[in-house]
């Protein structure tokens, strides 16, 4: 069977933007960012194994502005993917499909992704 005529998903450039599509594509984008984050954590652990001198290179980076930005970025990316993932589970149980509910949920996901990021950061910085 020749599969080359199979339709592909609509590419992003030709897609009309709505809240639902924004959250949907960001679920994927944050999924990829989380992958990158997890790979970075693996690299971090491996750098521990390679010794103090090698760790120093990553330490210099992490201790800078970019390091803080990276950690906050990964935290936000996880928060968004986690909240959007919860909605996916809600969808799987058959709820939340009508337009109004979908838009409200999208706004809540965006809003709470930032709130959760700040919460995780404050708890991590001050209570652990």
């Amino acid at each position, binding site marked *: 069977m020749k*599969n*080359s005529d*199979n339709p*592909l*998903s609509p*590419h992003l450039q030709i897609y009309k933007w709505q809240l639902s599509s924004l959250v949907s594509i960001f679920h*994927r984008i944050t*999924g*990829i960012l*989380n*992958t990158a984050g*997890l*790979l970075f*954590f*693996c690299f971090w*652990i*491996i750098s*521990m*194994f390679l010794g*103090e001198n090698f*760790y*120093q290179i990553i*330490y210099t980076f*992490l*201790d800078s502005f970019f*390091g*803080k930005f990276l*950690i906050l970025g*990964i*935290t936000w990316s*996880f928060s968004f993917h*986690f909240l959007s*993932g919860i909605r*996916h*589970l809600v969808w*799987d149980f058959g709820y939340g499909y009508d337009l109004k509910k979908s838009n409200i949920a999208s706004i809540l996901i965006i809003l709470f992704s930032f709130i959760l990021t700040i919460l*995780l*950061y404050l*708890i*991590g*910085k001050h209570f*652990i």
Partner: protein
Amino acid sequence: MIKNNATKKWLMQRLSGLFLVPPMIWFLLNIISIYNKTYLEVLIFFSNPISIFLIFLLLIFGFYHLSIGLNQIFEDYISNEKIKNVTNIISRFLSIIIPLVTLFLLIQISL
């Protein structure tokens, strides 16, 4: 038992995502707390048996979950069957090898 492969993947993606939440939150909180600490302080964190156990869960569920997700993205956006299959094989291979190597080295660090 579910026979259909796609349905099984669909279910496993949800389950691995759920299992991933507790170790991920735990890990993020700890990373935020130690990311700009010295070698010794970070070493103490990584040598803790509880840390090792939770990182084990994080990496196993994490790489399993992301491997299914990446697979779906390739499915949607790569039209060439040959390139798609090769990409899938490479990404699956890496998402087994990378966590295993990391866990092995993590245990080496803690000894």
